[in-house]
């Protein structure tokens, strides 16, 4: 027993304290509770992992039987294996950093305690999700983080755009969760259990040819869920809008942790996926498409957070590509490094926005590197990391993925390389527009407080050196390592792509300012298309949302509800009225009449008894 349950318990306690009493507590206490709880769980994670190392096989703790119905028996179990360990460290570590950052960032917001209560609640659910030892508990965490993301996106619930963005995120996630839940049902139906070890054992035992169909179905449905949660085509639309939330939220939930839940889930289910090549290909395809699409969009956006949001989407696409080509460990590796530099990017962006007191548009920035040097330096680390400049973290993980892709199918590698170039381009673009050139804004920038810059520093170090925490070896007991033939040429090519992207950005936005616009004009139609995100939202609106709304209005509301259900209700009412009108004749109000009725009843009873007992012997 290592009291795994304490890990999620700490944030839960924090949530309860802040949520229930926060209104009355002073900010210092709220900070203490919020940050302290997450730090505690981080420390507990570290301690537990030290105690458990080397974690060759999963360590499972059984607490109680949650559901026991017939043959289906769902225990409340938490488990830790190396995969979980990585996720735990990432979630709690980055989580605590971002909490610290948030204390500075949110300092002047109202609803302070509410914010941290939600944040702690999110941590609780995320940790439950990661620690779960069966699909149901994982699903609980899954839904929980969805809820928190909804709450936090809509944190500024007075802003209409914020609340609609929250709803959008929630509804789109519903679609994914729908698929996920059906997948769970199918798993129960096929394997009669939801515990990971049992399920995976059973899968290994299954003969491929007979059960391929069912397994593929399960995998695809799981992938639907993952696509919803991890913002993959076609369900990625909610993530960019989710940037309405406070920046720490974007960093924690929509960059570092929650959106990787899908990746984690698929990796966790690798045993099943490996049985279904078709599903694997689908995953890879989805990942690739998402990566390219989001990258292209990212190149044209002007809102700094939007840029990073699309970059997140495309990076997630990368991860799914990795999963799809069977390099699960590489995918998780990228999850970690991406968590580092993307969190850093967002926090940095947050710091910039903070410095410009709310300005998010790149066109109103520039030349900030001397005004807010710390932010600049830290962001620069993230930049090089994501652009895949060796030897920084992004380079390693991306390289792993691309290698695996090439080994799977060379053309995927090439697409990946192009995407890498685009990635480098848009990040550099954002950096140049933001920090170099002349200041185009009208606020008076000021450096952020230490509570914000210190986490930036830590994350900067991580994103620089994170690549040397070589996850694939570490994950070997979980995912058998694909034979790694390090092809120098491939590596060089990808690096070159990255360099090219940076260079292009430099040329377009620093060397020849104004060139960008002319390019945009040159490819007017294409630019419009990309700038408007391929009109995906509009297409969804017209093809899905409007028909649905109209249908509900006419058929469900007017037809079913008003017509049928109300009809039944009113019908019951009037029918009983009619019956009553007939029966009230009996209600003569005369006691002796009632008495007579009583005696009549008694006589009838006696007679029937007499008949029943057949004249009583």
């Amino acid at each position: 027993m290592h009291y795994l349950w304490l890990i999620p318990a700490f944030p839960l306690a924090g949530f309860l304290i802040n949520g229930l009493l926060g209104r009355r507590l002073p900010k210092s206490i709220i900070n203490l509770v919020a940050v302290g709880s997450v730090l505690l769980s981080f420390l507990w994670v570290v301690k537990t992992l030290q105690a458990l190392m080397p974690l060759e096989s999963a360590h499972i703790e059984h607490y109680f039987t949650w559901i026991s119905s017939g043959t289906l028996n769902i225990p409340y179990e938490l488990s830790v294996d190396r995969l979980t360990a990585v996720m735990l460290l990432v979630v709690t570590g980055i989580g605590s950093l971002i909490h610290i950052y948030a204390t500075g960032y949110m300092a002047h917001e109202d609803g302070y305690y509410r914010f941290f209560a939600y944040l702690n609640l999110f941590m609780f659910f995320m940790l439950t999700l990661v620690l779960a030892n069966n699909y149901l508990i994982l699903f609980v965490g899954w839904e929980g983080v969805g809820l928190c993301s909804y709450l936090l996106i809509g944190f500024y619930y007075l802003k209409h755009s914020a609340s609609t963005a929250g709803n959008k995120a929630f509804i789109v996630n519903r679609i994914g969760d729908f698929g996920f839940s059906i997948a769970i049902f199918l798993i129960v139906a096929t394997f009669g259990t939801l515990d990971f070890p049992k399920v995976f054992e059973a899968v290994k035992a299954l003969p491929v040819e007979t059960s391929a169909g069912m397994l593929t179905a399960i995998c695809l449905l799981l992938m639907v869920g993952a696509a919803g949660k991890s913002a993959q085509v076609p369900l990625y639309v909610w993530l960019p809008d989710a940037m309405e939330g406070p920046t720490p939220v974007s960093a924690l939930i929509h960059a570092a942790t929650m959106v990787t839940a899908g990746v984690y889930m698929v990796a966790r289910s690798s045993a099943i996926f490996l049985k279904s090549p078709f599903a694997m290909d689908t995953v890879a395809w989805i990942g690739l498409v998402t990566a390219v699409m989001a990258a292209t969009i990212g190149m044209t956006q002007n809102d700094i957070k939007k840029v990073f949001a699309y970059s997140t989407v495309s990076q997630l696409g990368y991860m799914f590509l990795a999963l799809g080509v069977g390099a699960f460990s590489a995918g998780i590796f990228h999850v970690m490094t991406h968590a580092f530099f993307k969190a850093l990017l967002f926090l940095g962006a947050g710091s910039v926005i903070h410095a410009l007191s709310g300005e998010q548009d790149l066109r109103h920035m520039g030349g900030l590197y001397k005004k807010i040097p710390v932010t600049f330096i830290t962001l620069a680390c993230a930049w090089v990391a994501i652009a895949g400049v060796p030897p920084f973290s992004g380079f390693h993980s991306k390289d792993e993925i691309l290698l695996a892709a090439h080994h799977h199918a060379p053309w995927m590698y090439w697409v990946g390389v192009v995407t890498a170039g685009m990635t480098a381009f848009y990040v550099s673009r954002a950096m140049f527009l933001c920090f170099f050139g002349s200041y185009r804004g009208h606020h008076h920038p000021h450096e952020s407080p230490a509570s914000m810059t210190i986490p930036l520093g830590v994350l900067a170090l991580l994103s620089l050196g994170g690549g040397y925490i070589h996850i694939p070896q570490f994950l070997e007991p979980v995912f058998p390592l694909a034979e790694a033939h390090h092809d120098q040429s491939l590596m060089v090519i990808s690096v070159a792509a990255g360099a090219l992207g940076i260079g292009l950005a430099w040329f377009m936005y620093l060397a020849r300012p104004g060139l960008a616009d002319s390019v945009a004009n040159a490819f007017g139609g294409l630019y419009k298309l990309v700038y408007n995100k391929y009109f995906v939202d509009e297409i969804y609106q017209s093809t899905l949302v409007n028909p649905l709304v109209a249908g509900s209005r006419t058929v469900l509301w007017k037809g079913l509800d008003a017509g049928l259900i109300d009809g039944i209700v009113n019908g019951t009412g009037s029918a009983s009225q009619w019956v009553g009108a007939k029966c009230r004749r009996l209600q003569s109000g005369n006691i002796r009449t009632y008495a007579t009725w009583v005696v009549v009843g008694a006589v009838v009873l006696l007679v029937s008894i007499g008949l029943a007992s057949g004249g009583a012997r």
Partner: protein
Amino acid sequence: MDAILFLIFAAIAVACAINLVVQKHPITSALSLVGVMGALAVIYLLLGAEFIAAAQMIVYAGAIMVLFVFVIMLLNAGEEKKPARPSWFAKLLGIPLTIAVLGLLSFFVQHGSPQSSVTFGEYTGTAKDVGRALFTTYLLPFEITSVLILVAILGAVVLARKEMD
């Protein structure tokens, strides 16, 4: 001897009961009911239920019926008058229903009753037996009845209070 006693007191009981029904004046009915109860008490004695016999006298004749007599005196209820809207239904079915009940019951008694007979003094359910049964087997019902009584007292008090003002 038993038979004679039984017949005497059964006759008294029936006579009093008939008197109860036919007499027009409530207090007469009340006292004939007391008579029924007295006769029944003696019959209980014949059946060897001495405690119940005493309880019959104390509770029924001594308490409940006194209450009735009080109320009758208090309301100074006189002879029955003709009601404004008599229940034709009851008038119509009263006698036939009564006869039906009597017939059915006697039918059951004739065919259904066990063929045993009672001789005085060969068995007595003494107060000890009753008490033992009451406080062991039937303890819970006993306690519940005590609660019932309490509630009844409250109800009576409330109603009477309302009646006062």
